[in-house]
């Protein structure tokens, strides 16, 4: 374990940072690295790549990781007290409910086989879409699958519909160009948003407030660079992920990237709380949370905004 | 008719090859009873394996009824020096094995197996597994198994080596009796010169390094061979002749 690496030595603080290897998860780290933002704030970062959020939170709580990145599907973990959100990152725009050609309306999903990767944003959008169409979870044949399997299952016609996201959707489209998109994130913009976020351990936040602030400063500056130099950010991320730049570019187009100023504003006017509250409602509905806690207990808005003035 | 023509057999060993048989010629007529004697390691078992079709000669050829031996067949029954019983089968099932492969019906199989089990004195152990048998009992089971398929050629590698003297005499008598009744061909390897002479039409004497035939002694004694015959001067003369053929060779040690 590297649990005791994060002590100050010679003015620099060591930080272990977890991420997921897609544009949302990796772009800020790629930018910060390129722009030497870590050095600037006296932080020696060590990045660790993961494939999902919950495992990062496990690692954070085991003391092996200081910060991590989670997608919308894992927001209930901080909400249930396992970690704290130190910064929001982007709003997912990539999720879709898709159906085979011929199905034109959400209501037609009744009785159909619908593939869904459980606990992901695909799951969320499907649930919201069904709700909107007045269908209950039992009205469809819900078929839980992992994301990669949905691609092949949908492409080969094994399922009638699915809750899934870009860039995976691109692969399905290659095989089924005439598939139908029945629902997308924007349809629910007024009630639920799909934020991705950076998290830290509960102890780090109380015990190492200084480090948290420095990290948030790095993130803020990286956000602003990303907002100002979109293409450069894509290029840097593609380099980090060893992926072709156009694949990353397509991926980047599926989310609304946030910058520090906007976020400061949203934090101040309660928009962020509204997003998180909306997520919380969803999770309560999905029985992942017993009740919907006040976002201020797990979103450190003041730390985020406070980092600006330092 | 068994014909062995200039058969050589070598085995690969570390750093070269070992000549187990260096040119063996032998004709065995139908219905003949041939015994093979020779010092330990002279290639007796190797000859038998070639006749059984379990080894191929390195050069030369072995024929049965003018046809080259290409593999084992139920026409040639074999009793192995190490018994080779199927450890997962009872005595009865072992004896029935060959009958099953020959497609003999259940009742006849039972009956024939029982006959040979009785013959070798294992009736009380018919349902015992090999691991519960004594050495001599295992050997007798192997004998019964080979007899049961009633092969026209019987290849026997020291078949009576592990049984006591009286049982041995009985088994010898039984063997001669069925041989003379059913006129099969028998090739019988033994270390016992007395036994070799007592049973055989001809005694093949082998020598080692390389394995070869040094002498073939015709035994022109009448059948049936009796206990009195063992004491006759003719028998003793033949016995001594075989003995000196075997041991006037270089000592093997």
């Amino acid at each position, binding site marked *: 374990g590297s649990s005791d690496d994060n002590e100050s030595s010679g003015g620099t603080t060591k930080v272990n940072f977890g991420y997921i290897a897609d544009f949302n998860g990796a772009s800020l780290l790629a930018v910060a690295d390129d722009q030497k933002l870590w050095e600037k704030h006296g932080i020696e970062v060590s990045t660790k790549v993961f494939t999902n959020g919950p495992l990062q939170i496990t690692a954070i709580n085991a003391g092996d990781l200081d910060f991590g990145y989670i997608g919308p599907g894992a927001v209930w973990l901080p909400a249930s007290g396992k970690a704290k959100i130190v910064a929001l990152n982007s709003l997912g725009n990539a999720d879709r409910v898709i159906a085979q050609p011929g199905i034109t309306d959400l209501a037609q999903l009744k009785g159909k086989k619908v*593939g869904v990767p459980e606990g992901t944003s695909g799951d969320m959008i499907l649930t919201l879409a069904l709700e909107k169409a007045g269908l209950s979870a039992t009205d469809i044949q819900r078929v839980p699958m992992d994301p990669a399997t949905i691609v092949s*299952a949908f492409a080969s016609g094994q399922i009638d519909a699915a809750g899934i996201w870009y860039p995976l959707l691109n692969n399905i489209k290659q095989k089924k160009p005439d598939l139908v998109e029945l629902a997308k994130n924007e349809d629910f913009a007024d009630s639920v948003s799909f934020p991705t976020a950076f998290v830290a351990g509960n102890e780090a936040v109380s015990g190492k407030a200084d480090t948290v602030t420095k990290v948030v400063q790095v993130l803020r500056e990286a956000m602003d660079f990303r907002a100002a130099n979109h293409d450069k950010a894509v290029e840097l991320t593609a380099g980090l992920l060893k992926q072709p730049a156009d694949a990353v570019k397509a991926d980047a187009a599926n989310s609304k990237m946030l910058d520090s100023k906007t976020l400061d504003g949203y934090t101040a006017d309660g928009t962020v709380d509204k997003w998180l509250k909306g997520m919380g409602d969803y999770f309560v509905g999905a029985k992942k949370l017993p009740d919907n806690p006040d976002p201020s207990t797990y979103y450190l808005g003041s730390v985020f905004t406070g980092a600006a003035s330092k | 008719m068994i014909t062995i023509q200039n058969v050589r057999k070598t085995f690969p060993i570390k750093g070269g090859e070992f000549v187990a048989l260096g040119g063996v010629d032998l004709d065995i007529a139908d219905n003949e009873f041939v015994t093979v004697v020779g010092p330990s390691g002279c290639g007796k078992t190797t000859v038998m394996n070639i006749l059984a079709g379990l080894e191929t000669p390195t050069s030369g050829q072995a024929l049965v009824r003018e046809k080259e031996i290409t593999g084992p067949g*139920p026409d040639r029954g074999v009793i192995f020096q190490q018994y080779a019983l*199927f450890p*997962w089968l009872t005595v009865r099932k072992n004896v029935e094995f060959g009958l099953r492969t020959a497609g003999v019906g259940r009742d006849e199989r039972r009956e024939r197996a029982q006959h040979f089990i009785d013959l070798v004195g294992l009736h009380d152990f018919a349902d015992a597994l090999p691991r519960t048998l004594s050495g001599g009992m295992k050997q007798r089971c192997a004998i019964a198994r080979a007899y049961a398929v009633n092969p026209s050629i019987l290849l026997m590698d020291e078949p009576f080596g592990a049984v006591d003297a009286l049982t041995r005499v009985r088994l010898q008598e039984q063997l001669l009796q069925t041989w003379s009744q059913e006129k099969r061909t028998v090739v019988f390897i033994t270390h016992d010169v007395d036994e070799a002479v007592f049973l055989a039409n001809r005694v093949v004497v082998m020598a080692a390094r390389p394995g070869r035939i040094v002498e073939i002694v015709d035994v022109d004694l009448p059948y049936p061979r009796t206990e009195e015959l063992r004491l006759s001067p003719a028998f003793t003369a033949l016995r001594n002749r075989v003995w000196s053929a075997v041991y006037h060779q270089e000592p093997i040690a």
Partner: protein
Amino acid sequence: MTVVQVDTEVTTGSPPPPERRRRGVPKSLWNALSVVLGVGVWWGFSLTGFDIPAPPEVLKRGGELIADGTLADDVLASLGRVLAGFVLGVALAIPVGFLMGWYGVARGLLEPWVQFFRTIPPLAIIPLAVVLMGIGETPKIFVIFLASFLACVIATFQGVVNVDKTLINAARVLGAKDGTIFARVVVPASTPFILVGMRVGLGSSWATLVAAELIAAQQGLGYRMQSAQLYYDLPTIFVGLISIGVLGLLMDRVLLLAERRLTNWQERR
């Protein structure tokens, strides 16, 4: 009953003089002790602040899952899949292992693929299985089948290669052809190897269950564990793990019992 007792003596024998040591504590008592110890360690871990649920919590959750019938349904669904996949895998592995051990051509043709697929994680097979076999029971059973087949085929192959040549020779001089030799010599002689394959294959089958139930499962222990993992519901995961462990253990016992009956001809420790 007596047969089992006798066999137990044969297989659990400790170094002679066996009669002497055998009079000690019976093995099942050591088993029990070991389980108690293990649960103790677990409880200890859960108390010392590790992020794992304590036994009572798991017990409670187990009680709930039993009470509402979920556990029974899951167990039935999973057991059916594992049994089907495992039985098919073993049934195919034995003849294929024989072919590979017996015929050079079969070995040359099959070996690269058997070796190749053995190293491929089941997770990577799943998308392909879905494309080829849909999302019903077939692909799930297929993935489990593959796991047990691959473990078992190697063991059978090795068993066939290791069969005492003299026994094969004995069968051949008794007129047996390849088919008979396979069924009546090679299979019994390599039973110990096949059994290793079956036991390891059984383990793999259960271990693959979770992967298999990624494919559109509505119920099953693996499915339950996955969805519990998403919800960070550790007690349910532990109930699933323990159920799988116990079921695997029971099936393994059945196998061992079968083996003892099949191989009590062996003289062994």
